[in-house]
Every structure is written in structure tokens, then in C-alpha cells.
């Protein structure tokens, strides 16, 4: 596709439920990133994939958060037992090689936990 695609664009869920957020990166981009952006804040790093493997997951806040990228393309961010504090915009970005190459962001998924 022309850019990074994220689905759904909006997700409302009840506290305690499980959610999956999908990211489809730019074709051929080996690096994929997940960020979380709360109101009034800048994007906060969650996890970085290089190919199929998580090269850096130091930003995942706790073990309720998990992400996969099984074929080195599409990635899914999974959140278990959601809490109200998980409400935020979840951004996905890809870059051609990682390192310092520019990030191309998706439009984000707005997650609301009620």
C-alpha cells in the first residue's frame, strides 16, 4: 500500500477485555515500531521489530502487552485484561532499515477502555 495502515481506527472496549490492534507497514520495510500516545504527550516507545524478531521491547509497560510480527510484515499488538489507563492512541510506524532511517507513521488506533 501507499502508507502504513492501522486497523481499527477506533476501538472501545470494557475494562478487563482483550484487544488486538493491527499494523500493516509499507511494503519492503524491515523495521516496525509501536508507540503509544496519551493526551497531551508525545509518542512513547513500546516495541521495535527488525524482521520477525523483537529487537527492543523495553517500552512495553507490563506483561499484559505483547506484540508479534510472525512473517516480518503485518504486526499485531495485543493487550490483555485492559485497564482504563491503557486508553490512548496506539501508533505504528515502519522504516526501510531501522537505525536512524525516517519513520513512516500510520494514522493510529484510538483505544478507549470504559
Amino acid at each position: 500500500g501507499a502508507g502504513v495502515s492501522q486497523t481499527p481506527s477506533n476501538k472501545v472496549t470494557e475494562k478487563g477485555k482483550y484487544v488486538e490492534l493491527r499494523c500493516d507497514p509499507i511494503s519492503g520495510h524491515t523495521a516496525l515500531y509501536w508507540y503509544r500516545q496519551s493526551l497531551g504527550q508525545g509518542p512513547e516507545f513500546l516495541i521495535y521489530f527488525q524482521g520477525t524478531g523483537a529487537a527492543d521491547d523495553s517500552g512495553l509497560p507490563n506483561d499484559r502487552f505483547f506484540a508479534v510480527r510472525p512473517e516480518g510484515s503485518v504486526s499485531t499488538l495485543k493487550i490483555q485484561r485492559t485497564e482504563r489507563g491503557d486508553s490512548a492512541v496506539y501508533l505504528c510506524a515502519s522504516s526501510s532499515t531501522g537505525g536512524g532511517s525516517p519513520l513512516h507513521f500510520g494514522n493510529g488506533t484510538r483505544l478507549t477502555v470504559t
Partner: protein
Amino acid sequence: AQRVTQPEKLLSVFKGAPVELKCNYSYSGSPELFWYVQYSRQRLQLLLRHISRESIKGFTADLNKGETSFHLKKPFAQEEDSAMYYCALTAGTASKLTFGTGTRLQVTL
């Protein structure tokens, strides 16, 4: 740990006035600095990076290691510059970007 500070949440200027969006960082090594911009109802996108030393849409930014700053400047603001601007840093060989909290630039007539 690296940190990026953008002291102004909102900067309001008149069209044609000079603009300076402040960014300071803390990192002991040699960082790579970026400015990202988000226009209304658009996705976050790269504006410029310090290693390119280029001017994009009339904006420039110089890395000042002595002052640990990477301020974004434009001599004459345009209405279409109104947007949210984020300064970001990559440290060493790490790939993750650390973002500041952003500054909203509002250009009025």
C-alpha cells in the same frame, strides 16, 4: 537515559513573523535529532533531521551540542505551518525514537 524537552506547549505567532520552536535534549553520547510534524487530521511525518542539514518548507534546525539544543526556526511563518511539532532523538545505535511532548504552533493573520 535520553530525554527530550520542549518547554512550550503552545506558540502563537503572526503570519510573516519569525518562528523558533525550542528543543533541548539530554544524552551523553552523539545523538541523532529529528523534527516530526503533524498537521490537522494528518499522520505524524518527518519534517527534517539534523544529519541532512537541509531546509524543508523554509524550516531549519541546527544541532548545538554545547547547549544540547536542536531548535526549529523559520524566518517568516505561514498559515499552513500551523501544526503540532515534535522533537525526537535516537541515541547511539538504538533504533527507537524518544519524543518530546510537542509544541503546537498557531499562525494567525
